[in-house]
């Protein structure tokens, strides 16, 4: 939440607040695509900001470059690729589901299945009236009753 001290510092080298009016493309459809893409690209010098939000000069350059590519007729994925070719996968906020990254994408669902399985086995094991045995000592019982009263 406390945002981008670094980028704000960089801002002093030249004023540029996130997307500037002069960057906006005249074609609304193209501009909308550019905005969507710039929301998944990370500002390479900031700490965890997209180039869409970032105030760093390099983010402005990237936003302009991205729009140039789109105007030149690149598809979304081609435009993204032309940026990642230069800066590496680090600038992608959504890591590509390739190679080891599959682990990242599968970790949640696999954990959920595992948890559901364990949870279900536990629930089944409790579905047995025999196990509803009370093993409190009388002294504990009175104490518990006093606590639970009300």
């Amino acid at each position: 939440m406390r945002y981008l001290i670094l980028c704000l510092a960089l801002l002093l080298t030249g004023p540029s607040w996130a997307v500037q009016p002069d960057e906006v493309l005249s074609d609304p459809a193209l501009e909308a695509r550019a905005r969507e893409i710039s929301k998944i690209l990370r500002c390479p010098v900031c700490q965890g900001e997209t180039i869409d939000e970032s105030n760093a000069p390099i983010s402005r350059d990237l936003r302009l470059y991205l729009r140039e590519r789109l105007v030149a007729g690149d598809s979304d994925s081609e435009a993204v690729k032309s940026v990642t070719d230069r800066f590496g996968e680090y600038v992608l906020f959504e890591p590509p589901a390739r190679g080891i990254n599959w682990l990242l994408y599968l970790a949640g669902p696999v954990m959920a299945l595992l948890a559901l399985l364990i949870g279900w086995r536990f629930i089944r094991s409790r579905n047995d009236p025999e196990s509803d045995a009370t093993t409190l000592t009388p002294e504990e019982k009175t104490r518990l009753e006093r606590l639970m009263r009300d």
Partner: protein
Amino acid sequence: MNAEIGHFALILAFAVAVFQMIVPMIGAAKGWTGWIESARPAAVAQMGLIAISFAALTMAFVTSDFSVKLVFENSHTAKPLIYKISGVWGNHEGSMLLWVLILALFGAAAAVFDANLPPSLRARVLSVQGAIGVAFLAFILFTSNPFLRMESAPFNGRDLNPLLQDPGLAFHPPFLYLGYVGLSMAFSFAVAALIEGRVDAAWARWVRPWTLAAWVFLTIGIALGSWWAYYELGWGGFWFWDPVENASFMPWLLAGALLHSAIVVEKREVLKSWTILLAIMAFGFSLIGTFIVRSGVITSVHSFANDPERGVFILAILAVFVGGALTLYSARATSMQAKGAFAPVSREGALVLNNILLAVSAFVVFIGTIWPLLAEMLWDRKLSVGPPFFEKAFTPFMIALAIVLPLGAIIPWKRGKLDRVFAPLRSALVFAVAVMLLVYAVSTGHSALAVIGAGLGAWLIGGSVVDLWLRTGNSGWSRLFRLPRADWGKAISHGGLGVTFIGVSLLMAWQVEDIRVAQVGETFTVAGYNITLENVEELPGPNYDSTVATMSVAKDGRQVALLHPEKRVYPVQAMPTTEAAIQNRLFRDLYLVIGDPQQGGGWAVRSYIKPFASWIWLGSALMALGGLISLSDRRYRVAAGAVRTANAIRPAE
């Protein structure tokens, strides 16, 4: 002199904490009453000493004593008083001091107010609490001493980061710490119970209020931070899946799971060992959060100090406490016998599902947060995991949670029938479907996000109303206001979650943005609003220079708002901040930002229409309020009071 008193009090507090860690634990093991009882004065003394130390530091900030290095680095004479005070915790050393102060406060509260606790359990709880105090006091004294002096005192300080000079952020850290540290109580109770070798309904009842309080504080802290981001960053983002936000979000999810599983332990004496494990993990994630913020291993704007030495220290604390607790857990967990039996379709079953969903979603946040670290360490790949991933991976769990929550909230204990549970919820379902149709009809582009989010939110709110209604039984309205407060708290919190669901989804689906160059006097139209840039002027502030615009907003020929967005420059730190002008209304926010002057004349202006934005924080406030109402339930107070009266009478017999 003040700073030395503070430093000295902190060293004394460390000594007291060492005593509190060792003596009551031995006393409890041997059954020596005096040693057992020594935990209480020790906890109070530790709190008093740290309070003196904290007061000394606050004094240094308030009086602008620049001979103290920390004050010089983070304060300035021209700063308003409130930010001189909040500056105490607006830096690494001071925030750690606040951390241990709150830790000691919780310990002292347990010593003074939990009169009902069996003495040996209390001694062990306070001893574990003392051990955490020892670790963090050592951390402060050896790596982050806030009382270091300068050789010669400068005339003025470097000022606090201007982004932190804001009322929302002034109180964001204390609330978060109250939450993080509140979870230390659940942890201490869990470890004490493992040492004692028993977990029962009474134990769960003692743990619940602490967990609930921690969860309420975390809710407030997270909501304040997100609200601050919304109005301060200049474009109205409210959640960024930043590592440090995640660090506070994971304990929140786990605390939510914990306070539900503790209910099962209390009512039915099952899920005991799971609850213990959750208590350990919830605090463990608080420590991980602290580690992430302090160590700089994961780059984030929040990181105060990218200091490896401090990071290693906190990692060691984490390893000792969580590792130790988990070892103890593995040795003792089997001794905790579950007692109650229940059918799969039952309140117990529903709460197990609740715990699975909350715990797995916390796991998803965790894996996404540390993935860049793992990828770099293990496969030498530098990559990023950001909002697109979290939105996809996390949202399904929240959808599932929202679907089953109203059913689980009213299903009977032990054994329920789905059709009978569902019957009273038909009205809630009709309400939700009606809301979905309405949203579908008015939504341009028929956004699925808006329809599903608003539908789920309506389902949650309707479900809460049904829940309350069912609690009144056949006696109707007259009974409604005599229901136990816990019932109200539960319904309000669940309803609040629904309100937040609606706010998040409608804001994300419907917000309208406009970026342009506007000349002074020019009027432009955004989503039916006619916005006029009336004028722009330069005004001086107490410790900043401000560019203030006056913008009027009209709709259908009538003026609806006159707003003054600002751009400030703080000369001491040479840093600009944006102060967006926001008109909050129940169904939409108008959000205007003034940017830089343009070369060809005119100003960069951003205008946003943000529908239902306030619902995000309204919902969070309701969740916190529900927690507070539950906390004030008679059950917690009466049980404590009853025993005290019994004790008081005994000597007279």
